[in-house]
């Protein structure tokens, strides 16, 4: 499953409820801290994957993290800016470089599990979720104790 359901984990339930009941200012601080920590983790993990020059431009350079009150979202290949000299943009061809394609010269061979993003995801997602839950708890806890 691409993501974990909140219902599958008591930890996540606790985290989500803590997040929901925290006040706005604390929520925003949590999002900020989580994002700041998660971005390098996601980028480093992608960089560590074997990838062609094209894949790296398409998929690694475009890695982003968005943190909302409910979840952490990892993205890649969202850019509309030309990444390759022929004019290919990640938003159009990113997935083709991730999963491969039979069409087109120089494209990686089809691979169901993906080349870069999805393999990296399997490693990095637990770390980031863990980071998020810990951050929520830490900041919410600190806030309760009056440490701002």
């Amino acid at each position: 499953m691409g993501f974990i359901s909140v219902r599958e984990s008591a930890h996540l339930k606790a985290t989500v409820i803590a997040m929901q009941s925290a006040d706005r200012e604390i929520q925003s601080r949590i999002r900020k801290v989580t994002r700041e920590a998660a971005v390098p983790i996601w980028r480093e993990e992608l960089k560590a994957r074997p990838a062609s020059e094209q894949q790296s431009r398409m998929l690694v350079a475009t890695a982003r993290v968005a943190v909302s009150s409910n979840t952490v979202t990892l993205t890649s290949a969202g850019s509309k800016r030309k990444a390759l000299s022929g004019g290919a943009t990640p938003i159009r061809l990113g997935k083709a470089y991730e999963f491969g394609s039979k069409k087109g010269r120089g494209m990686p061979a089809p691979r169901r599990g993906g080349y870069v993003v999805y393999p990296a995801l399997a490693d990095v997602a637990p770390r980031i979720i863990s980071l998020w839950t810990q951050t929520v708890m830490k900041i919410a806890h600190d806030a309760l104790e009056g440490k701002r």
Partner: protein
Amino acid sequence: MAQIKISLVGDVRSFVSSFKKGKESVEDLADEVEDLAKSGDKVEREFSENFKGIAKDADKAGKKVKSGLKDGFDDAKKEAAQSGAEAAQSFGGGFEDVADFVQETLAQAFQGFGPAGAAAGIALAAALGAALQGAADAEERLAEARERAGDLATTLYENRGKLPMEDAISRVLELLPSERGAGNPIESFVNQWVDLGTNIDAVKRAAKLAGTPVRDFVRGLSGADVEATRRALEGVDDAITKVREKARGELNWENGQAIAQLEALKSQLTGVITTNDLAREALSAVGSSFDSAAYVAKVEAIGDAWSDAMVDASNYVTEAEGVTTFDWSSYLADAVATLAAANNYQRDILTVPSDIRSEAERVFSEQGAKAGAAYVAAYLSASASDRQRFVDAAKQNGAAAGKAQGESGAAAAEAAAKNKAQGWGPLPMTVQPRVDERNVKNYVAPTGTIWLEPRIRPIGGRQVI
């Protein structure tokens, strides 16, 4: 194809809503919290299990991820709807807070465009900043807007030199409806910026009725291009006729409203054209009192020179350790000072003898408005004998400059033609050589409103600056 997007935790919305209704069992929650606070490893292991299979059926994952994402969006929407007003009150930091990141992103993309690009960047930064001021959840919107700003900036960067401004305006307009509210800063900002003067939605609806792209209307209403204004006016006339024909004399609430909107837009557009025509007449009247059609051309040339002399934004871009910052507050302050100098110059230039005038024009076009104004002021404050020396020097300089003028004139004309073709100009203006002093006085430091362009006061006083 779209981007690859994986939401790590799903199902949150339905969980939270049933939790709030008391349907979820969370007995062990207190223990969990304690547990979480203590051990990171365990949690990570637990989640690892869930993600193991992911590489195997990643393509299946896509679909599921999608449904997870939908949850997320719905949540965001709901949240925004619930707490709009409250959040607007609590989020006071506003402009300064959001300016930094937009500025950072945009300034990088825009620095290659020179002053016009910087102006566009500032406009967008301000528009986005203002949009965020009323955002329900500032931080979250910030992240969102950062991406949007990035997208926008990359698009503009790709379109280098190909009229990205219009695209940018329509994109800003696309952002508007969700951000609108009574006295919303973005609305007033855009009103000031493009002279819409009316409700943005009305313009969009009218554009739809008229079958004309919104950007044409914006351009027409901005007064930057009279031809565009006329085209927009034709479109509105057509639309009015169409609506009337369709209504067959029976006006109901719906088509009555449509016609009212179109009429409002029409009078707005007519106002722009009238202003433009009157300004042109006034301009030629000034020319005739000097008894020379060539002088009109000269005045127009001064206008061009003035544009050229506008502050170069690149002076305010600094790069340190890979981070580009754009000191826009100084940039705008300088721009205002330059405008004031240009005003003084234009006031005084009519009172000096022709030799001084041509020398002043040369100084102006070569060294900018401030130098030009200083030169004219120096002449005016000089004693009678010094004035004669000024004139002698101007004559000699003029002869020397005459030779060089051929080349630089061609280059300037080329640059101006290029600017015109691209619809760019540091300060798009209906009529070139008049800066209303009010606008300089009304300039507000960039904590709220930003003045990007001097405005001609429209006839009839509808447009409020």
